[in-house]
């Protein structure tokens, strides 16, 4: 709990179309660098021990207590087989707030917040990433760096993640 960065409140829902040209939080998974819409990020925390949930897929680490609310934590490194899942004082959990639900995402590290103009976002190729291209906004270029921009709303609410129960109508 030593470093807890509170970012701005999640206001103003945006359609994915105009996300480009906004600020992205850059983080790394293994050797790759990813970016997500900063407005979905509630805070960034260190990794704390989680309570395992029986019979859940291994990338769902379990649940933690975030100031009185129970929050599920997923490890993206396990989910996308990127890097080795080690848990030390450098492991970072990005707390996301998506559609009113709070969830944590374990990544290797968080680097910075960058602003990308629409010209800097190139369409993602069909192949070459571990993510299904449905969940990608595009590739952001920033000098020598390349950010894989993830549509975090779509990804986290997908049935693949199994975080949100799909209720049959």
């Amino acid at each position: 709990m030593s470093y807890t960065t509170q970012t701005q409140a999640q206001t103003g829902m945006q359609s994915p179309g105009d996300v480009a040209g906004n600020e992205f939080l850059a983080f790394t998974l293994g050797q790759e660098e990813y970016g997500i819409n900063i407005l979905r990020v509630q805070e960034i925390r260190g990794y704390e021990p989680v309570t395992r949930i029986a019979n859940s897929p291994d990338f769902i680490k379990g649940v933690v207590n975030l100031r009185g609310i129970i929050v599920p934590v997923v490890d993206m490194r396990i989910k996308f087989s990127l890097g080795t899942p080690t848990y030390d004082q450098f492991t970072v959990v990005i707390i996301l707030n998506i559609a009113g639900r709070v969830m944590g995402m374990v990544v290797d590290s968080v680097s910075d917040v960058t602003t990308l103009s629409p010209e800097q976002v190139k369409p993602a190729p069909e192949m070459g990433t571990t993510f299904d291209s449905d969940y990608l906004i595009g590739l952001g270029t920033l000098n020598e760096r390349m950010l894989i921009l993830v549509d975090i709303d779509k990804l986290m609410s997908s049935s693949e993640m199994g975080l949100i129960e799909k209720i049959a109508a």
Partner: protein
Amino acid sequence: MTIDMSQFYQVFFDEADELLAEMEKLLLALDVAAPDSEDLNAIFRAAHSIKGGAATFAFNDITEVTHMLESLLDRIRKGEMALTPEHVDAFLVSKDVLTMQMDGHHHGSSVDQDAVDNVCRRLKALSQGILPEAPAAADTPAPAVAAPEPAKSDAAPVADADGNYHFRIELPEVPQRDVDALAAELGLLGTISQESLADKRVVFTLITSEGQDSIVAICSFVLDPDDLKITHGGADQAAPQTATETEQTEAKHAAEDPGYGIFEPETADATSQPAAATAEAAKVEPAVEAKNLGRRASDKDGATQESSSIRVGIEKVDQLINLVGELVITQAMIEQRISVLDPIQYERLLNSVGQLTRNTRDLQEAVMSIRMMPMDYVFSRFPRMVRDLAAKLGKKVEFVTRGAATELDKGLIERIVDPLTHLVRNSVDHGIEMPEKRRASGKSETGKLTLSAAHQGGNIVIEVSDDGGGLSRERILAKAKQQGLPVTDTMPDADVWQLIFAPGFSTAEVVTDVSGRGVGMDVVKRNIAAMGGTVDIRSVTGAGTTIAISLPLTLAILDGMSIRVGEEVYILPLGYVIESLQPAAADVKEIAGQGHVVKIREEYLPLIPLYQIFDIEPNFTDPAQGIVVILEADGKKAALLVDALVGQQQVVVKNLESNFRKVAGISGATILGDGGVSLILDVSALLRSSRQLNADPVFF
């Protein structure tokens, strides 16, 4: 049994105030030409809820007004009557009257009985399809005008032997051409005769069976209805002398009150005199009544005019609880850190922390108590209501409550009151039969109504059950067809029972002021769905009906037993735990291919190894080394194998689903003293699946 109902008055007043404010807001926003049916329903429900509450507390005057209001709204809601601005006006006036009555009960302020009577008459008139005749008195309740006026204006049209009315229609100055046209048109309604006044205006005398509105409707094609004077006459024609007099008074009143005077029914002086006297008498009486009322109310809550409670949003309380929870954890951490310090050197620090610990604990308790209340708070208001209702309906009802000590979140308690009130009323009114009928069908004359609350499988289940006649499948289906709902004769019972939740659905033959409009169930379903709960109906014809409300545990205190398996700690709701013991190796038997059973006091119980279900690396796999906890749920018993018992504590149940999804075998989560999360086991689900457990893994 005597129960001081006055302890609940405040709640009723608060609720009613809110409902009235809501109603006013909706009324003002209502588009008269094309009213939104949702809004109409909402207004109707507000009226209905106030009526329900008022009836519970025996505020009969309020019940009376709301009943009329409701009747009228019901017809508009069902489209039997078009909404007019007059309706909205009348509703707003009745809202004011209700507020006044409410204040009368609450603070002992005076109630203007004339205004009440007027509004009742106005509502009644509207529901009979007559345009308002006497809005004046209601709008301007100034005694000077009100005293002589209502008697005159309230006189109903007098019908003659053939059911025909005699109208005297005085036209303003219009061209002869229009007069002829009108005469021809009005002639279609009945017999018409025509005469001229001194100032060349024309007066029709019409004998017709039609109402005034038809006349106005016809005339309004040609002239402004405001210029028209229609008076009811007896068989005799009014002398011109009287007419002029009436005219003058009218003019005077019109000047005083521009909103008044579309219709001016003529009344003979002879009738107006005693009527005025009665009005006078009626005025004196309510004054006395109001005074008595005032004394009664002021006895109760002293001189305090302000409310003694505030209503705070649940989110704020939730936030407070979460923050205090964090504080407790932080405080525990500090305590842990300083425990290694030298007690002599750091004596004052240690003392201060000790103080902090106590204060924190008190604070936590106080904050928790904001939300937690025993169900008794709700249950205790029903015996009186049931008794009164039963007496009114001539039924014999024995009322039993169970689980009144079950603690429930205050937010839920407050919201469960209305639905439960409806359900209990329904049960007494429709469920339990008349004594004769009960005797005829071989049952005890006294019906039994049970209200129970219990924690069950991570939910709170509140049941209203009666041993009455049960629901009638045929009648519900017939009614559903009549209302055009999509039904078939082969629907399963459960689906048929759900039909009674459709808006406006009621199979009761008579709409009484107790229940029967069908709005109750509509409200029940809606309120409970809003709380994230479900309503189930079990009914057997002739044997009774049970309506079970199941609410999720958004926040409930649970007595828990913490158990350990391997490295993991789980919470077992203590209510399900019978005992825990270490069985002798000889008492554990294997049933071929079906797992193990444990023999406990001559009883063989299935053994549920928790490590197997949750895929945990346990310390012990041999029951003789670990501990078995004997659980009982839904009448089934089983032995749960765990490694060790950790302790027993009260835990706050947190919903796992708010940010995650439902997990099989887990009913919720809680936060332990060290800030970690522990999962609460869903004992019913564990036991339910214990039989198939060994055949294939159920959990997943």
